């Protein structure tokens, strides 16, 4: 746990980079610091491991003021990853990851094991890349090594300053996803600096929005999007905040169980009755096991002799979304087909429910009651 208590940082030139920050990052959660450039994110972060001294106030780590430790001792217990990565170019990849364990005097065989484990974890094959030097790796690979190095001595706390800032968007998305998976395993308490709101929403358990050294709002991503506290926050999260919120909601949590649907061997009358019942223009067609086969339109039913002649067959993946998709993906499918409802299928292709436009509207209108946990994400 990291607690900022009324922390003020005044640089020697009199500039207040952090101005009365009070903030708690709870055990095992990712707390994202975000805000415009120069708002004091990096300064706040670096005060935690005392790379910068606090002018007033205090920072507690698991309840203990951080100035009760020798700075070096403190830093060895806190993982540190920065945008510029800062791998030591004269050391091999393995030696880079081993830095903090060596500073802590672990014995070599344990270090060796730990290093290879970490490299594997971040997707770097130690037998191929372990003895290379940083300049022989790509930017994305170096970022991974940077993360592995920060995890080196298994610190309970990590400080990450735009750790994925220096790579292209596609690599960044991959790194973000992989890092969340790692975090699920290791459960660190993480202060994560970024200036990218999408990254903050995706990575953060809670987001602290800063402006000119002050905390504007500290909320879960969903609450921040649903109820930005002021104009600055509203502008910062963007006009498409409703769309962004959909990103946070999983289909499973938002779908309706009952959708217009009939088995493929049903009669035309049965099909018509189904449409009537749901006041719908179209219905989905499933087989005896409930697996989604396609759909049928009201107009087609009128003109055809049988249901199988009237129905349109389509691969389930092209018209439906899986249960673990986000509401935003469901909306996207909804917009690209003429259905009233996006069908939802489980891993076996069985139709389990659907998401309607009305339902999505309800979700984003009600502020912040659908805050999804981490497991609600892809």
């Amino acid at each position, binding site marked *: 746990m990291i607690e900022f208590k009324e922390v003020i940082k005044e640089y020697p030139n009199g500039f207040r980079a952090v101005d009365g920050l009070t903030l708690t990052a709870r055990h095992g959660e990712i707390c994202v610091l975000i805000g415009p450039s120069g708002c004091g994110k990096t300064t706040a972060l*670096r005060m935690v*491991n005392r*790379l910068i001294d606090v002018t007033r106030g205090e920072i507690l780590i698991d309840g203990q003021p951080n100035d009760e430790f020798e700075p*070096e*001792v*403190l*830093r*060895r217990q806190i993982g*540190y990853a*920065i945008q*510029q*990565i*800062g*791998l*030591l*170019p*004269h*050391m*091999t990849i393995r030696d880079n990851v081993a*830095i*903090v364990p060596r*500073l802590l005097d672990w014995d*070599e*065989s344990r270090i060796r094991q730990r290093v290879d484990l970490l490299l594997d974890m971040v997707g770097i094959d130690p037998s191929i890349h372990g*003895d290379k*030097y*940083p*300049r022989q790796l790509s930017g994305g690979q170096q970022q991974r090594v940077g993360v592995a*190095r920060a995890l*080196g001595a298994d610190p309970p706390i990590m*400080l990450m300053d735009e750790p994925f800032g220096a790579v292209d968007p596609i690599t960044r998305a991959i790194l973000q996803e992989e890092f969340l998976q790692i975090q699920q395993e290791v459960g660190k308490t993480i202060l994560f600096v970024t200036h990218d709101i999408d990254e903050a929403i995706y990575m953060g358990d809670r987001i602290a929005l800063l402006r000119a050294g002050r905390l504007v709002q500290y909320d879960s991503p969903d609450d921040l999007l649903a109820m930005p506290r002021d104009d600055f926050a509203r502008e910062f999260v963007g006009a498409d905040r409703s769309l962004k919120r959909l990103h946070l909601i999983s289909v499973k949590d938002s779908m309706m169980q009952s959708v217009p649907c009939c088995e493929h061997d049903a009669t035309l009358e049965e099909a018509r009755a189904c449409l009537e019942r749901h006041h719908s223009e179209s219905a989905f067609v499933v087989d005896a096991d409930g697996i989604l086969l396609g759909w049928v339109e009201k107009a087609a039913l009128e003109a055809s002799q049988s249901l199988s002649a009237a129905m349109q067959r389509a691969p389930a993946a092209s018209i439906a979304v899986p249960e673990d998709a986000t509401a935003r993906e469901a909306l996207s499918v909804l917009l690209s087909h003429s259905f009233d409802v996006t069908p939802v299928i489980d891993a076996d292709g069985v139709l389990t429910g659907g998401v309607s436009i009305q339902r999505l509207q309800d979700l984003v209108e009600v502020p912040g009651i659908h805050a999804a946990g981490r497991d609600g994400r892809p």
Partner: protein
Amino acid sequence: MIALLGGCIASFGFFFLPVIELKPNRLASGLPVTLLEIPGDWRYLLLFLLALSPLLLAFLGVRNRRGWALVAVGNLLALLSLYLPALAGGVYLQGAEALFEAGTRISNPRILTSAAIATGLAGGYITLFAGLLDLEASGVSRWARGLAGAAGALLIALLLAGGALDVYSIMVEYHARGEALALRFLEHIVFVLVALAAGLIVGIALGLWASRDAKAEDAILYAVGIIQTIPSLALFGILLAPLARLGDANFLTLAREWLLLAALAIAAALILRRLYARLPARPRQFAMLAVFILALLPLALAAVLSIAFGFEVVLTVLTLPQLAALREATGLALVLFLLLMAAGERLRLERRLPRYRQWRFLPLLLAALGALILLAQAAGALLRQRELAELTMRDFGVSGIGTAPAIIALTLYSLLPLVRNTYAGLKNIDPAIIDSGRGMGFTAAQSFFRIELPLAFPVIMAGVRNAAISLVGIAAVASIIGAGALGDFILLGVNSTSIDQILLGAIPAVLLAVILDAALKLLESLMTSPGIRQA
């Protein structure tokens, strides 16, 4: 192209310039002999052919084969340019009486090497160089190229050792003065190394300071730059008076004063550290300056004493016969350590043998111990003759003329490249690297020794090489103030217009510079991490 140049130079020399000069005695002017004038012997023809062959070989198409051919021809050309004229010289010497006009005083007639030998050597080595370039381009390994390039030089060394070139008057001179030359050579080496070591300590400290402290930065770089512009003779002169005075001082008295001064400086520094935060900007600067000046005097005194005495001690370590056994053992341990380092680096032994990292330092430890004992013994031998109370600074080697001012001047001259390169090397490190190091929990010292120094190492070494080479040159001038070293031969030679003596001083100096440069380069490449080595 380059091979063509080599061939041209060598052929031109052999056709038009004298190879040797026959002098009836030390002073009279000599009788130049060109290759064509030497009475017939097929072997001299070989020289012409060799000299001309690069001109043909240059047009050989196959790169690899051309390379080897050029290397062979170059080596041979250099070798024979020295050897064949020596044979002819021997013949001329025997018939010397008959060659001069009657009445010429003939005493100790001698054979001087002349211009064509120089052009032959130059042509040979240019050709060799061209060949090596070809070999490099066709992917021959570095070791093979190094060996091929050195083959001729090795053979020449063999010829020298075997006495095949003894007819030349420079060799006659060498045999007469060999022992003195060896001592002067040793002095020269110790000179350069001690100055370099002292310069390194001061230079790295200053470079570090300049790179950390924006306020001192300009002043330091400017000061070491200024030193470089003082002509060496003037610097010797400036140092003469104060060092002469210092030399007369009684050691114990001075030591007492020194302790007082040092204590004062340390006390002042501690007080300033306490008050630092509370002082306003202006007085703070004055106080800093005052402490600095206070500290400067004891520091300078200590430096002068250790440099001057260090030279005497090291020279004694290297020459005193009683220390021979320990000396060799220490040297052996050091070589062993270097081999272990190199092997560890090449074969990655650290990975395979977990304890290797620690074990390989054992010989270094032994060498350090040996060196310590050697130094203590030598210091003891130097000071034993006197009672402690009677010791003056002169007994420690501090004096107005001689080695003390010379070596201090040398140290000062070495500062510019050392400070500049240390500064540049440290400044050019990506701040993110240092920041990440600090963030992971390196202490300031760990950061300096494990991150900054290794990263700045190649740049610092470039400065060390630069300094070493220029010191070899400046050290030769130092004999003007009685500092000995190879300059003695050069000065004597100039005074007695004896080209042989000049060469006897100059050739070892040049060799020393070349060898020192190569050795430092080797050291650099062994100790630079492959991760930052220039590709």
